[in-house]
C-alpha cells in the first residue's frame, strides 16, 4: 500500500527508483533543486560574475533548466537565448512558451533564427532530404547559440542536457566504435577558443526533470517536432529507457563509469593544440571548415 513523503508524510508524488525515497511535491522540488546545485558545484560550472547564456527552446528540459537556475541563488547573470530553426507548425508555439517563461521570470529573451545565420529555415534546408533533420538542426543550432552568446557578451553557455542525454552519448560513441570520442574530453572544456558549455542538469534524469516541470506546473501541451521520427538516437534511447526501468541507476553507472575511464587516462593535451580557425567563418575547428560551414556547403 502506498505510503507518504519520507520527510513530511503527505501524499507522495515521486519515488526515486534507485533509493526508493518518497517525496511530496514540495520535498521533491527541493531535492531536485539541491541535485542541480550540487552538480553545478561539483563540476565548478559557474563562477561569480559569470554571464550565462541559457539555451531556451521552450521545451521541457530547457524550461526546467532556466526556472531552476533563476531560483538558485547564483552570483551570475542569466541571458536566455531562443533559437528559431524555422520548423513549420511546431516552433511558433514553443517560442511563445519560451517568451512567456522569460516574462514570468523577468528576463529578456534573445531570439536568433537559422535565417539570421544562413539565410534559410530548417524546412527550406531540408526540402531534399528530411532524414538528416536532426544532424543539420543540431549543428546549426550550436552555431546559432554560440554566435548569439558571443553577441550578448556571455562567458558560458548552459544547455538543458540531462543524465539521459549524457548516457546516450557515451553509449553511441561505443556503438559507433568511435574511440577518439570515447577517450575524448567529457564534461570539461579544455578548448579556450570555444565558449565553455555547462550542463547543470547532467546528473538529473529526464524523468526527474519532467516530473519537476509537472509538479511545478511549468509545462504546457506543445506540439512535437515533425522531424522527431528521424532523431538519431531514438533506438539507443528506447533501449536505455528499458534498462533504466528494469535496472534503475543504469544511466548513472554509464556516465560515472565514463568519468572514471577518463580520469584513469589522464589529460591528453596534444589534441587541443590542433585547433585552428574555419576558413569561411573563423569559428574554431580542427578542419579547414567548421562543422556548420561544411554542412552548409554540402546543402548548397
Amino acid at each position, binding site marked *: 500500500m*502506498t505510503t507518504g513523503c519520507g520527510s513530511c508524510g503527505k*501524499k*507522495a*508524488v*515521486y*519515488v526515486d*527508483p534507485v533509493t526508493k525515497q*518518497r517525496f511530496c*511535491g514540495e520535498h521533491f522540488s527541493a531535492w531536485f533543486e539541491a541535485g542541480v546545485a550540487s552538480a553545478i558545484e561539483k563540476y565548478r560550472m559557474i563562477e561569480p560574475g559569470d554571464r550565462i547564456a541559457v539555451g531556451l527552446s521552450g*521545451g*521541457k*528540459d530547457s524550461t526546467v533548466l532556466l526556472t531552476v537556475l533563476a531560483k538558485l541563488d547564483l552570483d551570475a547573470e542569466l541571458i536566455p537565448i531562443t533559437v528559431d530553426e524555422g520548423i513549420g507548425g511546431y516552433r511558433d508555439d514553443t517560442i511563445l512558451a519560451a517568451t512567456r517563461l522569460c516574462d514570468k521570470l523577468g528576463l529578456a529573451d534573445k531570439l536568433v533564427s537559422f535565417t539570421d545565420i544562413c539565410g534559410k529555415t530548417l524546412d527550406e534546408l531540408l526540402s531534399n532530404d528530411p532524414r538528416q533533420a*536532426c544532424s543539420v*538542426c*543540431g549543428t546549426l543550432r550550436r552555431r546559432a547559440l554560440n554566435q548569439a552568446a558571443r553577441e550578448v557578451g556571455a562567458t558560458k553557455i548552459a544547455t538543458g542536457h540531462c543524465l*539521459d542525454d549524457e548516457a546516450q552519448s557515451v553509449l553511441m560513441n561505443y556503438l559507433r566504435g568511435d574511440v577518439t570520442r570515447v577517450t575524448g574530453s567529457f564534461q570539461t572544456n579544455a578548448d579556450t577558443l570555444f565558449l565553455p558549455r555547462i550542463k547543470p542538469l547532467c546528473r538529473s534524469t*529526464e*524523468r526527474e*526533470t*519532467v*516530473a519537476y516541470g*509537472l*509538479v511545478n*506546473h511549468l*509545462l504546457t*501541451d506543445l506540439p*512535437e*517536432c515533425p*522531424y*522527431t521520427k528521424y*532523431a538519431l538516437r531514438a533506438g539507443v*534511447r*528506447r533501449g536505455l*529507457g*528499458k534498462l*533504466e*526501468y528494469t535496472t534503475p541507476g543504469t544511466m548513472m553507472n554509464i556516465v560515472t563509469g565514463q568519468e572514471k575511464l577518463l580520469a584513469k587516462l589522464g589529460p591528453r593535451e596534444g589534441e587541443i593544440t590542433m585547433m585552428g580557425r574555419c576558413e569561411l567563418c573563423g569559428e574554431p575547428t580542427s578542419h579547414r571548415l567548421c562543422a556548420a560551414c561544411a554542412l552548409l556547403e554540402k546543402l548548397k
Partner: protein
Amino acid sequence: MVTLHLPDGQILTTHAGTLEEILLRLDLNPYEILVTRDGELLLADDPVDEDDVLRATSIVHGG
C-alpha cells in the same frame, strides 16, 4: 474503463489496477511515461479505478 490520454492525442482504455500494471498492460515503458490524474502525479503503485481519467506525459524529446 480507465482512460489514458497520450501526448499525441491517442486515447487508450483498459481495466483498473496499479499505474504500473496499467502501463505495462498497454505496452508502455513506465520509465518513459509520467501520468497525472486531476493534475497530480501518480506513483507506480498508486491504485487506478475504473472511470479514472489519466493524462500521460512522455519524457522523451527529439534531437
